[in-house]
């Protein structure tokens, strides 16, 4: 009888110093099957994959068994591993930006991959390379061969990475978060491509992801991991229909969803006339008035507009969501409100005062009513400060209250973001991502701002953590009633918190309005395309979205 392509039995991985280890994982992948390893950070899903291809980090000790077509490969000596690595098992990593050698041409890297397994050389290699690029659907491959990675877009890079992986026609393809770093539309394309590759070549695929949408979209079977153990394994449809393990349920529940058609209608009926509200409001919390921002300096010659004539207004106590793909200028808009980028044209008013004009005391006053939550919670906290100091800093800056009062405030805030007071003494690097983001949030709230700008507040977080943070955020926003801008590439996230949404593309607002309406009944074609591209966490929709995707690739 034929062995399964991959058979992992009781895999356990441990490290010298405590780090997420794999306790016991068993997975089987059959011919042409797409299996998804789902789990949050620390669940050991990546480690499992790395164990399969023999790329465990130094100091990792793996026990159990990993069989390819019945052959044990776990614990083989390096030179042995070299023979099957890339030849029979290939792996695709998360970051296409850095996964390619920046100083070698695409062609060279493909040739190198072929060479590694005594494949074609010279002219033949070149032809094979073209073939591969064609296989991953890169336009005019002959030219692309002599391109350097930086000349390709993110999506194309990931396609090249795929081409590399497929170079030696492996039986098994391990894809570790292959689309996480990509824009939704690109993600959709890559997913479609993966599926077609499977259909065409019959390569088995193990996809590692935290995104239930991706799973629903691609996987035949799902293996849910948690803290290094398999908690549930089932056929995709079955799992989504009837999740058995509570953790699975929690995962599914945590996934933010876009409005379904029916509740959209209700929303629309319930919706009061938005513009009217706007007018009777007093001065808006934030106002963009025909704003322009340029990047690149005149001296260097290249000047490209990042924001190009945006006009928006955010009423007090409202939450405005800025959505768009990378390069759409959404982040720039946010930083603009915080006075972090030079304005090239137009006006930005925070509670009526022009941010670019404000100096000295006026600026100080302005700053007190304004807070900014950076997308990377780790970077936004000074590694030398304790959590307490970090949260207290705004108070110190503005010399608010006595020392004791400030420390008191710190405790309150920690409590507000549901962290124990004891955390005040810890350093940022001792916290988990979620905890850090809470601290960042607490810090932002220290001065009771009237306007909060949150740039991708949850992009660095796991689904469940993300859910908590979002919920916490919404709650705080309701309690404290500050106006807020939420910037995110994740439409669902925005939908979860925002009252109003502005969709940006290439520095322009293509559409704005109440969240429910924009997402439920998009007026602009681009918005619709964005929405379609979002992998819906429901296997039943998969085939529906299929055609939609093809159309994008054409365009």
């Amino acid at each position, binding site marked *: 009888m034929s062995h399964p392509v991959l058979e992992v039995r009781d895999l356990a991985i441990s490290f010298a110093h405590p780090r997420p280890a794999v306790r016991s994982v068993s997975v089987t992948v059959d011919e042409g099957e797409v299996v998804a390893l789902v789990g949050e950070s620390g669940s050991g899903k990546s480690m499992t994959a790395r164990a399969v*291809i023999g*790329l465990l980090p130094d100091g990792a000790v793996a026990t159990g068994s990993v069989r390819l077509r019945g052959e044990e490969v776990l614990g083989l000596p*390096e*030179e042995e*591993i*070299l*023979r*099957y*690595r*890339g*030849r029979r098992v*290939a*792996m695709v*990593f998360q*970051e296409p930006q*850095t*996964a*390619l*050698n*920046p*100083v*070698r041409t695409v062609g060279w890297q493909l040739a*190198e*991959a072929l060479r*590694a*397994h005594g494949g074609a050389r010279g002219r033949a290699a070149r032809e094979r390379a073209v073939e591969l690029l064609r296989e991953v659907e890169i336009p005019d491959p002959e030219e692309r061969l002599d*391109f*350097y990675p*930086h*000349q*390709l*877009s*993110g999506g194309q890079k990931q396609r090249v*990475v795929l081409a*590399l*992986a497929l*170079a*030696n026609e492996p039986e098994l393809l391990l894809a570790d978060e292959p689309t996480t770093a990509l824009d939704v539309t690109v993600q959709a394309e890559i997913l479609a491509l993966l599926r077609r590759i499977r259909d065409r070549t019959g390569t088995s695929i193990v996809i590692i992801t935290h995104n239930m949408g991706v799973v629903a979209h691609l996987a035949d079977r799902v293996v849910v991991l948690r803290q290094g153990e398999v908690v549930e394994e089932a056929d995709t449809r079955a799992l989504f229909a009837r999740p058995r393990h509570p953790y699975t349920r929690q995962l599914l529940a945590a996934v933010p969803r876009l409005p379904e058609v029916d509740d959209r209608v209700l929303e629309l009926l319930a919706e009061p006339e938005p513009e009217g509200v706007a007018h009777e409001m007093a001065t808006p919390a934030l106002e963009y008035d025909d704003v322009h921002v340029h990047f690149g300096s005149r*001296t260097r*010659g290249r000047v490209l507009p990042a924001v190009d004539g945006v006009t928006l207004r955010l009423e007090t106590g409202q939450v405005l969501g800025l959505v768009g793909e990378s390069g759409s200028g959404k982040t720039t808009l946010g930083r603009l409100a915080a006075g972090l980028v030079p304005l090239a044209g137009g006006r930005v008013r925070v509670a009526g005062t022009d941010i670019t004009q404000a100096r000295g005391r006026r600026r100080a006053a302005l700053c007190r009513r304004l807070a900014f939550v950076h997308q990377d919670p780790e970077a936004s906290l000074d590694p030398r400060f304790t959590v307490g100091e970090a949260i207290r800093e705004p108070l110190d800056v503005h010399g608010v209250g006595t020392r004791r009062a400030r420390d008191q405030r710190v405790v309150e805030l920690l409590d507000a973001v549901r962290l124990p007071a004891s955390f005040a003494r810890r350093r940022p690097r001792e916290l988990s991502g979620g905890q850090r983001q809470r601290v960042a949030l607490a810090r932002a709230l220290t001065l009771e701002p009237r306007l909060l700008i949150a740039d991708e507040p949850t992009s660095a977080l796991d689904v469940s953590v993300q859910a908590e943070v979002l919920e916490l955020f919404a709650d705080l926003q309701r309690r404290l009633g500050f106006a807020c801008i939420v910037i995110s590439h994740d439409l669902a996230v925005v939908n979860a918190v925002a009252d109003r949404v502005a969709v940006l593309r290439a520095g322009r607002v293509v559409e704005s309005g109440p969240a429910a309406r924009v997402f439920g009944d998009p007026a602009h074609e681009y918005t619709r395309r964005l929405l379609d591209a979002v992998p819906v966490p429901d296997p039943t929709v998969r085939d529906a979205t299929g055609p939609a995707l093809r159309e994008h690739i054409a365009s």
Partner: protein
Amino acid sequence: MTRYLLRRLPSALVVLAVASFGIFALVRLVPGDPVSTLAGPDASPEARAAIRADLGLDQPLLGQYLTWLGQLARLDLGTSYRIGGQVKDLVADGAVNTIVLTVTALLLAVVVALVSSVLAVVLDNRWVNAALSFGNTLAIALPTFVTGLVLILLFAVVLPVLPAGGTPPDGFIARPDIAAQYLLLPAVCLALGAGAALTRFLTEALRTELRQPYVTTARALGISRRRIVLTQALRNALPSTVTVLGIQFGTLLGGAVLVEAIFTWPGLGGLIEEAISGRDYPLVQVLLLLSVAVFVAVQLLTDIVHAWLDPRVRIGGAS
């Protein structure tokens, strides 16, 4: 690329212009003057006056400066007071020796650095690394004048197999084998520090490269570590190494002054010392300006090479 170059040039020229004035002023401010050294203790006042006039030192300073600039513009470096003859010939003679010495040293350093760092990274063996890093630190810690003397003592005096100093009697080209032996000791002495420093840097750089995701990709494709190091990591580490190399070259030129003194290597080092102590204004000025020019040029060059080695700079493009 060309635009990049054009952007860097003006600042370089500014530095040179400022330098020329600074140097001229400095040289004139230094106490003591060429006349006294030329005339010697026993010369009569009229003799001094004659010399002063002869050297044009009786002209006003600004005038002297402008004449000098004029000469420079006409690529006429003037004539030396003390040593006599055209400054350009003197500098040329010295420069040849100094360049031969420094370039040899640089090559030595580069070879050593390449070999040892690649070994260290490819083998990745605790003991090899320990040995290398120890050797490194020691090589850096030993002052040039110490190593130089030890080398002479060992190879020229205790077991006289190599010349204790001086340049090959019949030039570098005529008898390369002889020339090599004359070069060996000073070059090694000069290369030691630079080589160690380079090794240290390159090893670190390679290690950093090996931590990059693209290396993981390559490994996942079943490419051997050795090959990754040689064809990918090294290539990626090259640009930054070139920059360091530039700095090192400057350092070597500086170190050459000392090494030339120890090995009586008639290069620019001795020349400049002689020129300064003799207050040989034309020579000093040119030499100092030259050292600035070389520095600026090397910087410019390294920047260009750096840019050229990095396709992201060489070829602009998307993302």
